[in-house]
Each structure stands twice: as C-alpha cells, then as structure tokens.
C-alpha cells in the first residue's frame, strides 16, 4: 500500500513521521526531566524545612511543651505559606522513639499518644520503614504504592534522639505544576509542528517533483513518439539532475535513431518499389514491342478494311500509352549524353518562364555552375520537374527560388517555393510512384527525380521550413 504511493506523498509523509517522532521524543524527555526536577525540588524543600523544624522543636520537646511544638508544626500551614507554594506538605507529625504520635499538624486525625500504625495503612508501612532504618540522618521515603512522599528527620538534642519529624507530601501535590509544565511543553511542540510540518511537506514535494516528472516522462516513452516528448525536467548537478540530463540525452538519441529508422524504411521501400517497377516494366516492354510491331506490319501490309484499321489504330494508341507509362517508370540513368553546363540552365529558365508568368510568381535565380561531368538530359529532367512542381505549388504572386551550386565533389540543386507546407502524412510517401497531390499530375514527377538521383548515387529530400517548401538534391560528381 505505502510502497505503491507516489514519492510526492511518500517523502513528505516520511518527513512528517520523523518530525513527529522527534518532537514527541524531545517533549517526553523534557517532561520526564521536569518531573524529576520537581521531585528533587520537593525533596530539597522538604529537607530544608524538616532540618529547620527539627532544630526548633528540640526545646519544646525537652520541656514537653506540646502547645509550642504544635505551633511549630502548624506554621507551614498558615494561610500566607499556603498560597506561596504548590509543593505543600500535607501532614507534619512528630513521633517519639516508640513510634507513637507526639503531636501532629492535624490533631483530629493523628491523636496524641496513639501509635503511628493506627493512622492508616500508609503510616503502618512508614512505621515499618522507620523501624528498619533508624539511622540518625534525614531521609526521603518514596514508598511504592503510597500516595505520599515522606521526609523523615530525627530530632536530636546533644546526641540523644528525642523523636522523629515526619513530613508527608501528596504525590498529586505536584501534579498541577507538572500538568502546567506538560501543557506548556505540548503547546510549544504544537507550535514547532505547525511550523515544521508545512515546511516538511513543501520540501518533500520539491524533492519529489523532479522524480515524479521524470517518471511521468519515462512512462510516456513507447506510447508517444520521441519527437512529441517535450519533458520539462529539473536541471541541476545532483543525482536527480544527472538522471534528467542522461534521460534527455537518451531521448535525443532515440529521436535520431527513430528518424534514421524511418529514413531507412522509406529508402528500402522506394528501392523495392523501384526494383519491382523496373522488372514489371521490362516484362511489359518486351511483349509490348512485339505487339506494336505486329500492329504496324498489319496496318501496312494487311489490306485491312476500314473497321479493322480503326480497331488497329485504337489498339496501337492504347499500347503506346502503356509504353509511355512504362517508359516513364523505367528510369534509365545510363543514358549517354553530353555534360551538363550553364547553357542548360539558360534553356531551363526559358522553358519555365511561361509557367512563372502565368502564376505571376517571382523567380529568384541563383546559379553558380560551370560544366560538370554529369548527363545534361538527366539533370535537366530533375530541374524541370522540380521547378514545375514548385511553380504549381506556389500561390498566385508567390515566390520560387532556384539555386544550383557545385564544388569538385558534388552538385547541389536547391528549389524552394512559398505556400502551404506539405502535410506530415504526405511527406513519408512523397517519392513513391503514382502519388498524386494535384489533380493534373501523373504522380510520377518526383518518382522520376528520386530514381535519377538515387541511380546517380545522390540524395534528395524535402523539407518544410517557415512558409516555404524546399527540395534539395545532392548529386556526387564522378571524378
């Protein structure tokens, strides 16, 4: 149950328990100490009182002046003394050496000359103690199962023991003082708790918070794509901070890995599609050529009636359409051609200008290229495809940007257009054949570009950035 609890509660709860235990332990220790002090206080008081009284009583006892002795033992009970101290003696007795009562502060209860044992069970116990310890010293008798503490002091005159002074203190006499003290201690504890508990909860929550966030973030891995995992993690150099940093690094690596995987999957898929398409095209091309030859021969030498000619023409057109499509699919990069040069760029510009004007778009032309040993017709095909796509994608009065750069190792074609970005869902199937994004396209333009670039050993990628879409083809230049 507790094990499954969130750290958000577990840490503050543990802190609370610790604080409670500590405060109760300290309070208990203080209270225990106060009880002890109180008792020592009482004993010191009592011994002082008993010492003075025993000394004062000597002449009265020697003269058998009972009234005087009574006045002495009664003094502590005068009204003035009563209000001064809560540690008030309950009874003061003088007992003679035979343990009979000589005089007592409460003469009604302790009849003169009666044995101490007649005064009740506690006094019988006390008498037993007095018999056992007849030392000539003052002592405090803390007898078990009695309601009083007894301080006994011998009354001695010139080494002769005249009797014993007994002062009894009710144990409950110091209860009020003790209760007062305990009450104060409890209030102090509550105040401390009142201050510490919220602090403990605050700190506990702060401590648990990064852990809880980390756990929440970790929990989202697998369920959500790493790209969407934006975790607001605690940053510091402590352990949790380190874990957070490592986690972020891991998340970043995971993102890279996933995008790599996606790229690989897309490339493999395109390669498979390309291979399949090429073999199908070859398989179709061979019988197609035969069929077209046959139709041509028949048309030319077959003495056909009008109906047959019409049918053959229909068949031929259909087969030619199939041939066109198959030819388009069957991108052959091994065509031999002259090298690509600046004059090709001029041709391309001339070719797309009508489309640019129709769209009232603005063309930005940034071409810094010499002659490169790459097939002019292939590069022209790529550029024209990409530029026409860009012009069609840009809104009216939009912008189209063409940059062609080269160095000794590669040719970079960079075509951008302003306008709506390509949706994420289309991005992953962009270079597949027959993927139409416009009503007037055949869905093969980008496929062809991809096939050419790939066959030339280069890469092509699309990216949405800000309010424009860019295609970049990087083609290595054979050395």
């Amino acid at each position, binding site marked *: 149950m507790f094990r499954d609890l969130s750290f958000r509660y577990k840490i503050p709860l543990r802190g609370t328990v610790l604080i409670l235990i500590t405060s109760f332990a300290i309070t208990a220790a203080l209270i225990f100490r106060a009880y002890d002090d109180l008792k020592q206080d009482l004993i010191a008081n009592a011994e002082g009182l008993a010492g003075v009284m025993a000394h004062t009583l000597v002449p009265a006892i020697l003269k*058998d*002046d*009972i*009234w005087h002795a009574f006045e002495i033992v009664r003094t502590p009970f005068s009204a003035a003394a009563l209000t001064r101290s809560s540690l008030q003696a309950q009874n003061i007795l003088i007992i003679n050496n035979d343990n009979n009562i000589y005089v007592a502060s409460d*003469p*009604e209860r302790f*009849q*003169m*000359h009666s044995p101490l044992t007649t005064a009740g069970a506690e006094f019988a116990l006390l008498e037993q103690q007095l018999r056992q310890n007849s030392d000539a010293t003052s002592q405090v008798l803390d007898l078990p199962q009695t309601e009083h503490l007894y301080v006994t002091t011998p009354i001695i005159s010139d080494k002769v023991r005249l009797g014993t002074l007994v002062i009894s203190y009710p144990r409950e006499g110091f209860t009020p003082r003790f209760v007062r003290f305990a009450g104060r201690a409890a209030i102090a504890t509550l105040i401390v708790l009142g201050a510490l508990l919220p602090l403990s909860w605050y700190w506990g929550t702060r401590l648990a918070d990064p852990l809880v966030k980390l756990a929440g973030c970790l929990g989202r891995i697998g369920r959500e794509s790493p790209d969407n995992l934006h975790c607001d993690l605690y940053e510091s150099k402590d352990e949790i901070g380190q874990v957070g940093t490592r986690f972020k690094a891991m998340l970043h690596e995971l993102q890279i890995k996933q995008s790599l995987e996606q790229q690989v999957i897309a490339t493999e898929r395109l390669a498979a599609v390309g291979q399949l398409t090429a073999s199908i095209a070859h398989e179709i091309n061979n019988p197609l050529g035969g069929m077209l030859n046959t139709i041509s021969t028949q048309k030319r030498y077959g003495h056909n009636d009008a109906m047959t000619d019409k049918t053959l023409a229909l068949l031929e057109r259909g087969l030619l359409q199939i041939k066109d499509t198959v030819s388009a699919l069957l991108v052959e990069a091994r065509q031999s051609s002259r090298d690509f040069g600046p004059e090709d760029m001029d041709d391309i510009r001339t070719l797309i200008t009508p489309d640019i004007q129709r769209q009232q778009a603005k063309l930005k032309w940034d071409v810094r290229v010499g002659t490169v040993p790459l097939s002019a017709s292939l590069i022209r095909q790529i550029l024209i495809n990409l530029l026409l796509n860009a012009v069609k994608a840009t809104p009216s009065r939009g912008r189209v940007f063409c940059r062609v750069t080269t160095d000794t190792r590669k040719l970079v074609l960079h075509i951008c257009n302003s306008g709506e970005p390509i949706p994420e869902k289309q991005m992953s199937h962009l270079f597949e054949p027959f993927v139409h994004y416009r009503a007037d396209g055949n869905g093969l333009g980008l496929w062809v570009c991809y096939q050419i670039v790939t066959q030339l050993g280069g890469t092509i990628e699309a990216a949405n950035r800000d309010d424009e879409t860019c295609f970049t083809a990087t083609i290595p230049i054979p050395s």
Partner: protein
Amino acid sequence: MLNRRQLLLYIAATTLASHRMVRADEQAPVRIGITPVFQTERTSLIRDWRDYLERHLERPVQFEQSNTYRDIINNLLARRLDFAWICGLPYVTNRSRLQLTAVPLFQGKPLYRSYLIVPIRDTATNTLTDLRDRVFAYADPDSNSGFLVPRFQLIQQGIDPDTFFRKTFFTSGHRNAIEAVSVGLAGGAHVDGYVWESMQRFNPEITRATRVVTRSREFGFPPLVAGPTVSATLNSQMGDVLLGMGSDPTAASLLDRLNLDGFTSGDPAAYEDIAEMAHTIGAFRHVP
C-alpha cells in the same frame, strides 16, 4: 517694671512649669505587666491603651508581656514591674505583698466565670468527668479559671486530676487553649469566660469550632494590682485613671475593644473563694 511679688510668682510659675515638663519627660516609665488574662496578641489595642494612660498619667507607660503568669508575678515582686493585670489565683497567693489597683467590669460586674469547652463535634460531653482519658489543655498553672477550677472540681468528686486525663499540657494562655480545643489537639479545656466571649466577638472562626459545655459560678475578675514598691499616690493615680475610663467618652472605643465596661476599685474579699479553693486542694504550686 515688675514688683518683687510679681517676680517671685513668675519665677515660681516658670520653675514649676519647667519642672513639670522635665518630670513628664524624664520620669521613669510606669511599667505594667500584662498576662494572657486577655488577648495579649492584640498589639494595636495595647498601644492605644498605653497612649491613653500616658496622656492621663502624664508620664511614660510601658506594657510588658509574657507567656506565663509566673514571669509577670516574679517581675512584679522583684520590682521590675509597677503594675500587672493578673489572675485572681496569683493575686490571692501573693496578696500580702500586692495592692489592688482596679478591677475590670465585665458585663457590668467585676466577675467572670470559667467555661468548660470541647470541640464542636464532641456532642457527648456534658460534664468535666466525661473527659476521662482524654487530652486536656490547661491555660497556665497560675490560672484560676484555666487550672484551679477544673482541678478543684475533680478533687471535690474524689478524682485525682493527675491521672484522670490521658495527657495534659499547658498552652500559655486561654486563647491558645481555646484554639487547641478548636483544632482538636485537646479534647477539652477550662478557659476564662471573658476571653472566650471576647474571641466570640472578635475571632468567631475559632470559637465556632468549640462548644461551651458548662459555665462555673462567678469569681472575682482578674484584677490590676500594684507591686510592693509602688507609692500609694501612684497607685491611687492609676486607679483614678482606670476608674475614670468608664465615664470618659474618649475611652469608650478602647473599652469596647477590650470588651469591658470599665473599671471599679475592687474588693479583696471578692477573691476569697479562689483562696479557699487553692487552700483546699493545696495546689498552690503544682506543675504536672
């Protein structure tokens, strides 16, 4: 210019006047001993009484007190005191050497009674003999009401007062005896009726815890007496001042606080009863 006769008169007058003043200031004070026949702890009352006497005697007055009658009697006989307010018993014992100065009037008469008191919770005691084997408090061995009376009563009934009680003790005064009974220290005591009545008036919380069982017949009230060396003049002067208190409006509040009506010259014969009792039991000097 003064003539001779006028001059002589003037000198005589000034001399007399100055002499009077000197006498008032330098004369030895009149020393008066007081015993616990009344509430001796009422210090402010004693001061006021002293001031009254000083004003009327025109000389300093000193009150001296002691816890025992014996001290006062001894000092009086040894001439360390001039006057003393003592009990009837020491008076009759030493009357050959003492002069009666004045006797207080209590409830209109120079007489008082001895009361037998017991704690209020003791409802069974009806006579002194019911207190057999109990603790009994005596006010003072030289007290009539607090010592002689109960012993005489017991002896008259053929009882030995020394063995009749379980324990007896002296309390140095009637007030303490009353208190000893009220707190239960003593099971009973015989006390001066005047003191008990005064306490009933001024300290009812103490007398409330006691019950008066019997009241004795009347005896001569404790008198104020002069010692052997006091001149007849001073004695009569003191007697006049005391006797005058009854009719002096300025002494009214003092007498009220003393719980007395005034003073009378007194008659030595009024103490004959006490003398007879003392003689009968032969207990002039007895300390248990």
